[in-house]
């Protein structure tokens, strides 16, 4: 399992469009991918759950990725977050 933390820098937080892109990126992998924010943990492959976290700028999230393609998935997700959020 790979875990890493990320702090949202986008002033708009995770709004619908980047959320859709994030879910699309996550669902392309077979690994299970979860996002933890405060006491909540959700699957990064679920759009409504992701948006219901209500993530804003400077919120800190923790990603956990587990599965056969976890290395590639973690790399791409990290890249995506840094570029887009």
């Amino acid at each position: 399992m790979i875990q890493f933390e990320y702090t949202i820098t986008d002033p708009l937080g995770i709004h619908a469009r980047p959320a859709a892109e994030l879910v699309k990126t996550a669902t392309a992998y077979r690994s299970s991918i979860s996002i933890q924010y405060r006491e909540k943990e959700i699957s990064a492959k679920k759009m409504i759950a992701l948006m219901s976290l209500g993530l804003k700028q400077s919120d800190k999230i923790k990603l956990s990725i587990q599965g056969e393609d976890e290395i590639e998935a973690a790399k791409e997700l990290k890249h995506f977050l840094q570029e887009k959020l």
Partner: protein
Amino acid sequence: MYTGKGFGIVEGKATGKVLVISSCVSANIVVENTNSPSFELERFYKARSEAGVQLQNLQEQSASSLGKDQAAIFEAQTMMLMDEDFEEVVRELIIKKDLSAIQAVKAGGEKIAAIFLGMENEQMRSKAADIFDLSRRLHTILSGQPASVFPPEEPFILLAKDLSPGELMQWRSPQLQGIVLSGGSAHSHLAILAAAMKLPCLISADIESDKTYENKILAMDASAGMFYLDPDKALLNRFIQEIKREKIKKPATDNRPFYLKTGEEIEILANIGSPEELDSVLEHHCQGIGLFRSEFAYLGRLDFPSEEELFQVYRRLALGMQGRKVVIRTLDIGADKDAPCFGLAREENPALGNRGIRLCLQRQDVFRTQLRAICRAAAFGNLMLMVPMLISLDELLQVKGLLLEVQEELRQEGLEIPELPVGAMIETPAAVMLSEALAKEAAFFSIGSNDLTQYTLAVDRQNPALAALYRQSHPAVFRMLGEVMRAAKAAQIPCSICGELAHDIAHTRELADMGFRSFSMAPVFVPAFKKYLSEQYLQSASPNDTI
């Protein structure tokens, strides 16, 4: 040009294209489901794939005409449509609650939208609109009606027989200019919501909500009670100019406090029905919320709101008011309100029926959930509880008893639960007669003059034939007010007034002379009320130089 009349309940002028809303959306909901769950489930999946195709088309169309960014919105909607959680909610409603696919997409959409509506951040709250769009799209497909599912992109006016508050919320858009109803009521929740949203609104308008009017230009003047379909150019231009001018001259609401000769401050509070109105409360510099009608979370839905959902709403109010008081009236629902979750039977006489605190004490499971949510949210601000429709001391004591149990329960769960003052809403003649006893147990009184007038005068406030008899200034009502105020003073508890009488400036002086210091009204009435205070009466920046 067709000229028609109506009765204006929210003042102002508006112009726009007609959008006809047929109320089959709310009508469908009461139809019993006679099909098997597996059949309805299959209908849902079919409708979902069709909605997916529609969104795909929209995505392609907008990509070519508007650009990639706009198209991505439809992509996001597609993902919400195909979301497992949404599917799970709808599946459960169909299988476990035996709902039809139509009912399930409506109820499921509301359930998910409620999560977003409870959030603090405006941007997150607006996500609820996406969910409403989806459930409307599915609803349209399932009911086989080819209607437009998005609010138009240009100024529009809603034309309908009647609208539910939920329907109005769904059509809310910066382009929505006004509402024309052939039916409707001045005392409905829709009226309150339209006032809060500052949407000019005509009811009892002499026009059918006929599809043939769709897209025609309409100009309305709610203050004059007139509307014009297909207006001529000169009239339309005059309207457009006047609307522009009105917008410019709108003054900011006075934020100075007002005092009596005695140095006592006049308190102006807001009546609201949804946390969406918070901005308008702050903008009008109200000193608190004197009446939060908590029914909204329960209206038009098939399942009860969860404790978490209610907690989010109450917490938002508590935080939003930044320490100023927020009086939450506990659920006041009866057979006349659209709350299918209670499954209430039709009543001959809902105003005298199973409603308000009566219903809550019968459905303690539901009531406890609300109390728990309020107690938890009380930690985030200055919340108070108010009990509606009381006719006996025993009812108030029962509520206080239940509240203690709930608070104890929450403390056992390890939560910090602050004290919660419990007030009595005085709106029945019985409560007036018992006000001395009630004052010993209540932390405060608030007089609901609308119902008190109706019950004192035995005049149905929704019967247009009796409109002239329904007078809140009737001497019998005023004697009741005097009685309640005496009891409140004797017990040294505050007593405010929160019906229509509270903003009726023809009676403000009389009420102040009787001892009323606290007036609770819809935010839309606040500017006129403050103007009255500053011009006629009790204006001063400090108690020392009062007239």
